[in-house]
């Protein structure tokens, strides 16, 4: 990635000419390029439609919704839905719980994944293939199947209805995927780098923290972001495990609005908008990390 940006005035003449030709070619954009542009713009617009509908309905009063239907733009700014929802579920606390759980899980799962993957990918322990297969299988297991066993376990350990219980469960679930991914990244780790470190007298622990982790840091930060967002959006396990409203997460709090027979469309939209904003903000902050790609890294 960095090599592309190093074409400066100091580059040889041939190089410069080639790059000039490239800019000229870029300027002569054919009609096909515009067709692609138009197509992508249309696609982006289509992707934004659901979001727009949510925003529309979040800003409507229930009477307006019933009178004009879900697709009409709001007549004015109606913020009561957002305000009511905030107070009804004590959204500040819910937000804090979600951030706490997702943050802890993201950090914990990345740490666990690194340690596991170091043993599997670089340490090449015996039977690593089977360990990976088991982890992958655990990953494909539907959460519904896990709920009852986990419920009894957490009850035994006194972790039922605690945030710690949910953090442990998700740290393990997420690190199963993390281990699987990182092991394959680390199995292609350049051996000469490891050998050089060993010759310099580094122990296993030092190699991990001084050599391996800095090199795969971009991958780790991507994993961190994904774990955070995935855990944020989890519904079933938090719903089952966090009984008291004091411990609830954002996605569970949204469920309060779906009644047995009726739903409150405008308030649901307002709530969805509130629940969405933190992940969008988090995504924007870490956008650069994400765009580096899941398997970025390796040797410079």
């Amino acid at each position, binding site marked *: 990635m*960095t090599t592309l940006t190093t074409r400066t005035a100091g580059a040889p003449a041939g190089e410069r000419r080639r790059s000039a030709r490239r800019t000229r070619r870029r300027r002569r954009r054919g009609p096909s390029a515009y067709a692609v542009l138009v197509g992508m713009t249309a696609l982006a617009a289509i992707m934004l439609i659901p979001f727009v509908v949510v925003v529309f309905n979040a800003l409507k009063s229930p009477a307006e919704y019933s*009178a004009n239907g*879900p697709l009409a733009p709001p007549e004015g700014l109606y913020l009561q839905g957002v305000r009511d929802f905030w107070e*009804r579920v004590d959204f500040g606390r819910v937000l804090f719980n979600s951030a706490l759980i997702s943050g802890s899980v*993201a*950090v914990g799962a990345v740490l666990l994944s690194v340690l596991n993957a170091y043993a599997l990918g670089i340490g090449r322990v015996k039977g690593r293939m089977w360990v990976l297969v088991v982890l992958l299988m655990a990953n494909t297991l539907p959460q519904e199947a896990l709920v009852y066993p986990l419920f009894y376990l957490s009850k035994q350990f006194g972790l039922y209805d605690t*945030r*710690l219980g949910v953090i442990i469960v998700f740290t393990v679930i997420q690190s199963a995927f993390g281990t699987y991914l990182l092991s394959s990244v680390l199995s292609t780790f350049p051996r000469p780098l490891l050998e050089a470190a060993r010759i310099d007298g580094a122990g296993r622990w030092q190699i991990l923290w001084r050599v391996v982790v800095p090199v795969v840091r971009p991958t780790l930060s991507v994993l961190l972001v994904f774990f955070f967002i995935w855990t944020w959006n989890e519904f079933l396990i938090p719903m089952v495990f966090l009984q008291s409203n004091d411990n609830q997460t954002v996605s569970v709090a949204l469920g309060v609005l779906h009644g047995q027979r009726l739903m409150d469309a405008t308030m649901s939209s307002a709530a969805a908008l509130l629940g969405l904003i933190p992940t969008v903000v988090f995504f924007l902050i870490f956008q650069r990390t994400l765009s580096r790609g899941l398997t970025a890294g390796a040797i410079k």
Partner: protein
Amino acid sequence: MNRPGRGTALLAALAAGSLALTACGGGGGESNPNELRLWHYESPDSAMGVAWNQAIKEFEATHPGVKVKFEEKGFEQIQKTAPMVLNSNDAPDILEYNKGNATAGLLSKQGLLDDMSAEVAKRGWDKMLSPNIAVTSKYDAKGVMGGDKWYGIPNYAEYTLIYYNKELFDKHGVKVPTTYDELIKAMDQFVAKGVTPFTNAGAEVMAQHFIYQLALDKADPNWVQAYQRYTGKANLTDQAWTAGATTFADWVKKGYIAKNSVSLKAEDAGVAFIQGKFPMMFSGTWWFGRVLKEAKFDWDTMLWPGGTMTAGSGGNLWVVPKGSKNKKLAYDFIDITMKKNIQNALGNAGGVPVAADPAAITEPKAKKLIENFDRLAKNNGLAYYPDWPVPGFYDKWVSAGQKLMNGSSPSSVLGDLQKDYDSGVPK
């Protein structure tokens, strides 16, 4: 590329935060004799929400020193997690729970609910609830409703009825029907004017209520008992069911019900009625409060013309978990919700109270709603809901309704339902 300081600092901050905060997990579990932990899932502006808020205030006023710790839950959350919560130390002292064999019946069978028969007799609740409503409060050893032991108390009831838009009836010169034949005539007049008479939602509960109602028109209470409580052999291909399914399919063909409503949700159908696009909506009393608040036209309600029975039952139940640590307080709370002033508040807010004083209901439409209910309850007219007898029957009924709307033959659709019914009935 990645300045080393930032990422590490962030990691450290997150890790430190998580450590500090997981330490203060805990909570719940410990019992407090001065706190009533109460869960329900009605929205604060619904009739039940309004009445129960008032009940909580009255409870705290009559029990000095006792606080009510109310937690609002989602319907789905309570449905999915109740068996687990009630089995743990974190069970609330009292909660609202869905009535029926597959829900409250199942919990009572598993021994998770407190048998409140003694309290019911002592406090006289059995005299306030008509036998037709009490069916869903009492379960037998198998968890089948209509049993001998009380496991819950409903504060309200529900039934299906027709909401009609008076302005559309006037505009098209159609007379509001009072008999089944007049209903058919009125629908023909609407169709002739290019108006679809009924709003409908094929993807949700509305379609099956039509089928059930059209079958009930040809049935009697024994037929309902056989189907709902397994007192006899239920034959889903009998004359009443066949009439129900055939008539429903016929109504779709004639345009009384729009064919393209097959994939609509109840929310869409209700909003379409509130927007004034359809002259009639056949659905439950749970729409009443919303129509009252949001419809901008002149409207009213009526029972199904010519019908003596309709879908309906007592509402959701207050149940007391076996593990409740404050049972006495819980029963005191139920007692308050059954008092006249709370019941009247429920009625005035658009609900159907079970023990209100009709004279105290001021809203004329609500008064009519409650009077019609009393008529039904006195005459054994509540026929419960078609999807109740068998677990998972609701989805089968939705698909049956959709198949009928799409032109499948009624006999094959009913035959499929019979198979599902037979395999799901408790032995």
